[in-house]
């Protein structure tokens, strides 16, 4: 009698109980890591690759993944699984590596209207919201550079900013990516005109740099390294001022487009001409003297 009872009732019940416990346990470890567990990048990827393969792939295609040291999940999200998304969405998680608040890349944003509003309002936003459909009144770094959780940040940045080489083939790709974020607030014509005017403004800045480069290159034939040192020193500043124009356009900071950009380049150019012009003038004086001696 007891045997019948055991086989008929208890063993299925026990099996179900055991299976349920085991299954729950398995689900539990797969779903969310415990809040106080410190995570490493590899453990994030294992799980999130299964959940959202393209997100991991985007990150792998970004400059962050190949940077030295690598900028991985925990670099921005922290290593505790609670509030991971909102932690990374704050601008501080970007500026920490990108030179701090005073660096041109961050300061050009901070001095834009978007940046001003962010300073006033950041504590009033719900940072648990995704970067989509104007969930934030003003965009921070991530809203534009990681719109719709795009983890390939490099797809929103022109490589010219990093390596100084102009590559016109990437202009359209980057603009298309950016447009998605801009158009949640701004009109299509406004965005297109800002893009095209920005390209024109940047090209003007490049013209100044190329003019200075041509002057220095030409002078290489006549003067030595020591004589050209001041002009070359000035040319280095010019690179930064060109970058300022670029950042000013990208982040819509009038101050970086103008005071830290275009008129600064004007000053660089005339100082380079002045330095090399003086060398040429002294050379002419010397030559006239040796002519006088030989006469």
């Amino acid at each position, binding site marked *: 009698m007891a045997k019948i009872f055991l086989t008929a009732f208890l063993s299925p019940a026990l099996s179900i109980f055991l299976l349920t416990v085991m299954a729950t346990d398995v689900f539990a470890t797969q779903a969310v890591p415990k809040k106080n567990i410190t995570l490493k990048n590899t453990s994030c990827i294992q799980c999130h690759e299964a959940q959202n393969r393209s997100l991991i792939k985007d990150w792998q295609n970004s400059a962050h993944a190949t940077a030295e040291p690598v900028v991985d999940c925990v670099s921005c999200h922290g290593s505790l699984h609670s509030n991971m998304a909102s932690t990374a969405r704050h601008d501080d998680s970007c500026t920490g590596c990108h030179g701090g608040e005073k660096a041109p890349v961050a300061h050009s944003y901070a*001095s*834009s*209207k978007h940046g*001003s*509003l962010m*300073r*006033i309002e950041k*504590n009033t936003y719900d940072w648990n919201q995704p970067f989509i*459909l*104007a969930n934030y*009144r003003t965009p921070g770094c991530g809203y534009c550079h990681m719109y719709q959780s795009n983890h390939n940040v490099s797809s929103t940045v022109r490589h010219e900013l990093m390596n100084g080489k102009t590559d016109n083939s990437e202009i359209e790709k980057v603009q298309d990516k950016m447009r998605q974020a801009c*158009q*949640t*607030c*701004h*009109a299509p*014509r*406004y965005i297109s*005109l*800002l893009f*095209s*005017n920005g390209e*024109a*403004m940047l090209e*003007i800045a490049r*013209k*100044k740099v*190329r*003019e200075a480069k*041509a*002057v220095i290159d030409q002078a290489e034939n006549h003067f030595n390294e020591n004589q050209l040192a001041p002009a070359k020193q000035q040319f280095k500043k010019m690179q930064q001022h060109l970058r300022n124009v670029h950042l*000013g356009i990208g982040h*819509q900071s*009038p*101050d970086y*487009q*103008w*005071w830290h*950009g*275009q*008129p600064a380049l*004007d*000053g660089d*150019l*005339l*100082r380079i*001409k*002045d*330095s*090399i*012009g003086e060398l*040429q*003038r*002294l*050379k*002419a*004086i010397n*030559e*006239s003297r040796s*002519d006088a001696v030989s006469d």
Partner: protein
Amino acid sequence: MKRRFPLYLLVPLLIALISVPTGFFYVDWNKSGEGAGLYSRDWKPEAIFAYWNPKDFYQSVDTVVGVFDGEQCVQCHQGVTPGIVNDWRKSRHAKPSGQQATVYCSDCHGNNHEDLHLPTPDVCGSCHDKQHGEFIDEKRYGFPSHSLAMERALDAKHFADKPKAEVTACLQCHSVASKCDSCHTRHLFSAAEARRPEACITCHSGPPHPDDETYFHSKHGQLYLAEGENWDWSKPLSKGNYPAPTCAYCHMDAGKHQVADKSIWQFGIKQVNPLTAGNIVKRKQWIDLCSDCHEKDWSADRLKEMDAERKRAWKKLYKAESILKSLRSDKLLFPSAKQRPFYPMNSESDLLHYERIGFFEGQASAFYNVSALERDYFEMWYFENLTAYKGAAHGDASFIKKGHEAMDKSLKLIQDKADRLRFIGELENNIKNDQQKYAPEKLWKNGEYTLYNRDNN
């Protein structure tokens, strides 16, 4: 006997009757070109100017056809541009108090989608007439002013001369005259937001006007940074409402929408006598304002310190200016005004070419196409001088020091360079054969940007 109208009155009268209307006609004619402002016939606007100066340049899109009422605008744009609709929903326009009617998109932009307009201050002024009236009234105090910012930018010689894609950068800030959302950003148009110092700093930053840094460095600014988050920004800018002043508290006291009536030093770009009758009245206004928190005598002393700082600064600036002017009179500035691209809006055919030194000669446009020495003085005057000035005005001792140290360094550099120019000039004058003298034109009047700037403005 018939009395003749005396000739000495008749002639000037006739001259005046002819020349004054001709003058007005000439200015109007100049302003009627494709661009805008005094040199409107010399340049064409970039398409983007429509957004910075809508009055002169905005034309509606015609991509959407139809006449819509306010609710329809909102419904469609909730999907197209949700950000601006979210803003509007939070604004007073969407939720007016009392009996006031809701202000919809169409009330400011028009309801015909093929004939939309960007709201200019007049449009805002049709309801906010007090604020708009104060804003427009600012014009009578002259420049610098918010209200005159656009027209003075368009009238600037370097603005007319430079490629327009480049000077787009200028209009973004100077558009403060053309639209109210420079300070009350669209489409929330919040008074509380404009009361915060951050509302000003997008334009009031950078080398010639480091208002942001000097304010944030000051004790006032430090208090704001430490506690500002907890202040009630819905309160008007008047006595007792704020523990420390912000930009607007002092410059737009009681919310008055003009900033120029108390201006004594006029942005620090020219020397002024602070003790004229008019300026003493302004000084009294400042002291009254400071005494919202401080003692009157203490406040008066701070202003006296600023007088002294300005006096010191101008001593240095005039010294530098006289070095440059004496080089100019000895024809030693190199390259000279003729040997380099001409001063903006001058041309080959002009009779007189000379180097612009000092505010009253138009130095403001002389930051490019000039010799390095002139640029050094430009930076001393416009960057370093104003660094010290803003430090003194906003209570940031570190910027007073920084500005004056930079001016001392520049003055020495200018003196050294001037000596060098004199020395080289003398050597060159010893060359008897003019053919052997160096001609700088080839270097200075050529080059990719220089030629582009010559041919395109």
